[in-house]
């Protein structure tokens, strides 16, 4: 059969963000594909060198529209390490609470997108409805749905009032019930299983070869999670259950995210229960001493790494960000070579791309 090349993107209804692909097919079989990216490159790393550390926190928040909080947290952790200041324990707990809530909303968003791609619009509606609750919690405590502006160098910008704590607890209770419903659907719904089980399996060896991290790695049985492996406080005091599945197919990637959502909600409850009293911020000097530092965090999509070099001024000399999406994207041509045309959306959605993060 003749080979046909289909161009997809950079702007395409299948994609939420710009990415260009050329997929080679012969009949119903996909032979492979090539990728081109960089359409949302904004030069954020360079821009940080022209602004002060205080201003950079807000710029970095805009690297990603979903996991904005984990980016600022990782950046602030690095700056605080160079400054040699200790963040108050309550601020650490609020940071972690926001990180977990962000994971909940990111995973629910993703579950919705996958359901839509496999034709289960009902699940899409329900997960996005539930995600609204997570966003409501974050908006209630930080004042913003997506850009929370929670972090500042030296702590967090806001405290949790007793009423807010009650609101968070109530909404988390509701979310837990709704997420178990979604889990039931993923485990039992025949339509979803038929579209995802056995689709584009990835072996653990391949995951290690391509340095893939996050839920995609865990769905192939690779046991990595920075919340346990390289924790910053308060994760070192928490007992994080790292969930893995051996299958490595699209269904395992779906199930992993639903189970992780449940685990994150449990962690939120633990964080609220153990949250210490006290101040939420300490004064930080504007000038950062000379030096370099690397900090890592577990974002919803996997490891986020920040390298920061300071020359002793109030502006960073160099900031390098590494996000999880690039590694997962490099796996895409490999995954595409084994599937049918109808599976392309499932595979694309399955890896939970965040192009804005990857391009920066």
């Amino acid at each position: 059969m003749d080979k046909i090349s289909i161009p997809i993107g950079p702007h395409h209804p299948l994609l939420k963000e710009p990415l260009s692909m050329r997929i080679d097919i012969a009949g119903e079989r996909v032979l492979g594909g090539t990728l081109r990216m960089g359409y949302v490159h904004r030069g954020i790393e360079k821009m940080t060198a022209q602004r002060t550390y205080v201003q950079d926190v807000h710029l970095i928040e805009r690297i990603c529209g979903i996991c904005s909080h984990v980016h600022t947290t990782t950046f602030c952790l690095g700056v605080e390490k160079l400054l040699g200041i200790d963040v108050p324990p309550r601020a650490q707990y609020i940071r972690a609470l926001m990180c977990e809530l962000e994971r909940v909303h990111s995973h629910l968003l993703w579950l919705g997108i996958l359901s839509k791609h496999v034709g289960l619009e009902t699940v899409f509606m329900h997960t996005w409805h539930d995600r609204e609750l997570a966003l409501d919690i974050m908006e209630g405590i930080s004042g913003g749905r997506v850009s929370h502006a929670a972090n500042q160098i030296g702590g967090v910008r806001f405290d949790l009032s007793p009423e807010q704590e009650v609101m968070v607890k109530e909404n988390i209770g509701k979310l837990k019930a709704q997420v178990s419903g979604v889990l039931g659907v993923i485990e039992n719904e025949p339509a979803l299983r038929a579209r995802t089980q056995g689709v584009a399996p990835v072996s653990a060896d391949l995951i290690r070869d391509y340095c893939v991290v996050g839920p995609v790695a865990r769905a192939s049985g690779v046991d990595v999670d920075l919340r346990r492996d390289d924790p910053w406080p308060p994760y070192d005091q928490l007992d994080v259950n790292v969930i893995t599945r051996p299958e490595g197919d699209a269904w395992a990637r779906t199930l992993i995210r639903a189970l992780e959502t449940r685990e994150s909600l449990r962690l939120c409850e633990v964080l609220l229960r153990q949250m210490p009293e006290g101040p939420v911020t300490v004064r930080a000097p504007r000038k950062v001493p000379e030096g370099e530092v690397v900090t890592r965090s577990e974002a919803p999509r996997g490891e986020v790494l920040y390298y920061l070099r300071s020359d002793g001024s109030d502006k960073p000399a160099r900031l390098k960000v590494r996000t999880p999406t690039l590694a997962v994207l490099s796996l895409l041509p490999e995954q595409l070579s084994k599937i049918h045309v109808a599976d392309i959306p499932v595979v694309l959605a399955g890896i939970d791309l965040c192009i804005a993060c990857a391009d920066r």
Partner: protein
Amino acid sequence: MKAMRKRHSLLDAIIDAVFSRPDTVAYPFGELQLPEGYRGAIVINPENCTGCGLCVRDCPTGALKLEKKSRDEFKLIHYPARCAYCSQCESSCVRGAIGHSNALVGATDRPRELIVVLKDKKEGED
């Protein structure tokens, strides 16, 4: 029916949805309830502002401008279209003069609304 429910776990959710009320607000016709701490329009308490310019220095988007002639004569201007509603000015102001109200800031086609004079202090005034 029971067997069908077991096979299609979505059925319960669909039945619930038929009998539940909509979750969306018919904005702008319905009332929009924003949380108390929502980071909305920038407001100032002019009595507290001394024109020190700390907020202007830290604003990441250049949405604030201070036109200072002397200690007693200055103008603090806010450009809402540039503002990222990030709350940095509130954190930077040591006198607690500037901050957010929880009013939603919508798009506008009236140029006058794009320049907001927060404080216009003339010599001899308080």
